């Protein structure tokens, strides 16, 4: 399966298993979503369970909270992560805090799915990676898978989770892994081991990182599309790097990250989002606190530049293989 099919399968499984699961979002029903992630689900489960909504992100999340409070398990789609900001108040002030402020008398098990990231010539309004502005909120889990197998298992876990989860889908890798080189022909998920996705129900634990590539020379901590870029960069350098896929940003599996960095002594943090106050800052600080005495060099970061995502300069903005390689070389050269 590709990632679109894996996500579709996750929702299909959950709609079939649990009558309280409903989907809502813009263009998701009859049309099946602009990225086809909900294709066929309205036909199968009806317009009362796969609900087309007005173009009102704040309304979508607010209504999902109300549904969640009243016993449903809503999965809301925000068509692009760039369009989530009208819902920000409902996410930050309401969804993330409802359990806390009501001493758990009211809860809303809402999952918000949203495609993120660049690489599709989407310009500043179809390319953002805003995970850090959600990681900063207490009370909402934040997930970003990097392959179809994880996408399905984590999405089912997110839907079954009684806490709210925001689920970022790196849209550049919907149809195949991407090593950061836009000039290479696209490849599908068929030949990738994690494109192998079981048909039925399974979950992956939220809060657990994965070792995407084992190694001993240096640890690269990353997630989403950048997992594939970092693996390609390490291989291009012939470097025996361990690449960790964070997978769940909140809660963060610091133990797995710290174990690896303590072993390798060197750490590069990489993400596509802007660098300043990006989630890499949290990763870097948390790893430093846990591993300071094992570090042989300062932790380095590779990220998008601190500008909006420019349409014409997509590949100069995107933290591609060369940016990762240069950082790795500097990191390995450090004393």
């Amino acid at each position, binding site marked *: 399966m590709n990632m679109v099919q894996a996500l579709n399968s996750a929702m299909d499984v959950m709609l079939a298993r649990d009558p309280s699961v409903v989907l809502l979002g*813009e*263009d998701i029903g*009859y*049309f099946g979503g*602009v990225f086809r992630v909900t294709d066929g689900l309205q036909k199968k489960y009806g*317009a*009362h369970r796969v*609900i*087309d*909504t*007005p*173009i*009102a*992100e*704040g*309304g979508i999340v607010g209504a999902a909270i109300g549904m969640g409070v009243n016993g449903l398990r809503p999965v809301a789609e925000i068509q692009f992560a*760039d*369009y989530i*900001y*009208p819902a920000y108040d409902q996410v930050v002030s309401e969804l993330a805090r409802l359990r806390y402020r009501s001493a758990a008398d009211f809860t809303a098990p809402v999952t918000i799915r949203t495609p993120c990231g660049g690489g599709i*010539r*989407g*310009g*500043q*309004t*179809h390319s953002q990676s805003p995970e850090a502005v959600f990681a900063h909120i207490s009370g909402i889990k934040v997930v970003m898978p990097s392959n179809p197998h994880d996408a399905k298992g984590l999405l089912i876990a997110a839907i079954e989770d009684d806490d709210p989860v925001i689920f970022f889908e790196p849209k550049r890798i919907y149809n195949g892994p991407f090593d950061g080189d836009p000039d290479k022909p696209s490849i599908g998920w068929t030949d990738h081991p994690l494109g192998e996705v079981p048909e039925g129900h399974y979950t992956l634990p939220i809060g657990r990182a994965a070792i995407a590539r084992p190694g001993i020379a240096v640890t690269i901590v990353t997630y989403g599309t950048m997992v594939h870029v970092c693996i390609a960069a390490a291989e291009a350098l012939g470097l025996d790097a361990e690449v960790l896929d964070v997978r769940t940003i909140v809660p963060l599996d610091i133990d797995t990250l710290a174990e690896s960095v303590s072993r390798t002594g060197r750490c590069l943090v990489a993400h596509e989002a802007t*660098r*300043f106050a990006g989630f890499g800052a949290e990763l870097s600080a948390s790893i430093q606190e846990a591993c300071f005495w094992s570090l042989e060099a300062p932790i380095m970061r590779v990220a998008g*530049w*601190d*500008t*909006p995502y*420019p*349409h*014409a*300069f997509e590949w*100069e*903005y995107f933290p591609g293989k*060369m*940016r990762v390689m*240069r950082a790795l070389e500097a990191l390995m050269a450090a004393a």
Partner: protein
Amino acid sequence: MNDVARLHVPAVPARPGERPDFSYVRLSPPGAVRRPPIDVAVQETASLAEELVRVLDDDGRAVGPWAPALDAAQLREGLRLMLTTRLFDERMQRTQRQGRISFYVRCYGEEAVSVAAAMALEPDDMLFPSYRNQGLHVVRGVPLVDLMCQLLSNTRDMCRGRQLPVMYHSAARRLFSISGNLATQFPQAVGWAMAAAIKGERQIAAAWVGEGSTAESDFHHALLFAKVYRAPVLLNVVNNQWAISTFQGFAGGEQRSFAARGPALGIAGLRVDGNDFLAVHAATAWAAERARRGFGSTLIEHVTYRAGAHSTSDDPSRYRPRDDYEFWPLGDPIERLRRHLVLLGEWSDARHEALSKEIEAQIAVDWKEAARHGSLNDGPKLDPALMFDDVFRDLPEHLRRQRDELTLELRARAAARPGAP
């Protein structure tokens, strides 16, 4: 009757393979709707927000109290500008299909909404377009070459490569920067108009959103502020029936007009035949005078049809009948004005043909000129270092450092390319 409430799902009149059905579109006979004085009380516009202001009848005659006093030269100019908009649009759509530009949004079928409105406004009124208002730019005289260069993200791109195609702007011609986020321009236009009122200036603002975007909270904020401060602003809803795949019923249009939200929130409302050049012109002129003279804002709903796809990323045959535009009851805006001019003896098929050829030739010349300035694929390219400009007025230290890092990275990338020395 049900014993309990059941979720209502708005009906969609026709899906692929079904016969197009526009019986839901409530029409008024041409010329039938009254035209009140511009200082009419808001509540007295309530019926105008439900009826449909139409001037051109099926034979091409201009009828009723809304018929504007435009002379033949002005009408021909309107036709020329609509035709320019359409032919430019068609050419850019084809260009996108050939891979020369990354993305495009057409306004096919909606030319009157923009062209007639912009012609009815003063040249220094401030316009806040959506991404489907090409006609505003054409009327304001933005050279087609400039629009093309933006589409190409090339060295003459007014946005310096930062925006998706069609997100134009022109400060000199008072066309605000277009956002990909929906309806954000609506309260901004109100604020611009509030500033004009604060400063005691006579310019007004006008903004456009699609009916789908009226679902966003910014739409409601705009109407509220416009009402509270009696801001001199025209708020236009282009009801083209579809927001990507979402039918207007899902935006709240089922058995209720969008214009009715004006009077409901305290500003005047007009529902207008958006494919009728004369009706759009008359309604805009009425609302503009009302706003300019301090009687407040008007919400104008333009009833039209999105004859093409949402964008080049969309395939409408997945969710609506392929041939639906042929059944649209309000016809085609260009054909209707053309018929009117022919009826007046001011136009002919031969002149129309000649004009089309002339415009197409000019577009071809303009395209050649625009392409000289490069594209994302070939020719001259913008300097990537420009990416860091205009984040702030002055380049901060951390961005200067990132710019330097990028320079080194690009050098390394060039050196690593096969065949590099």
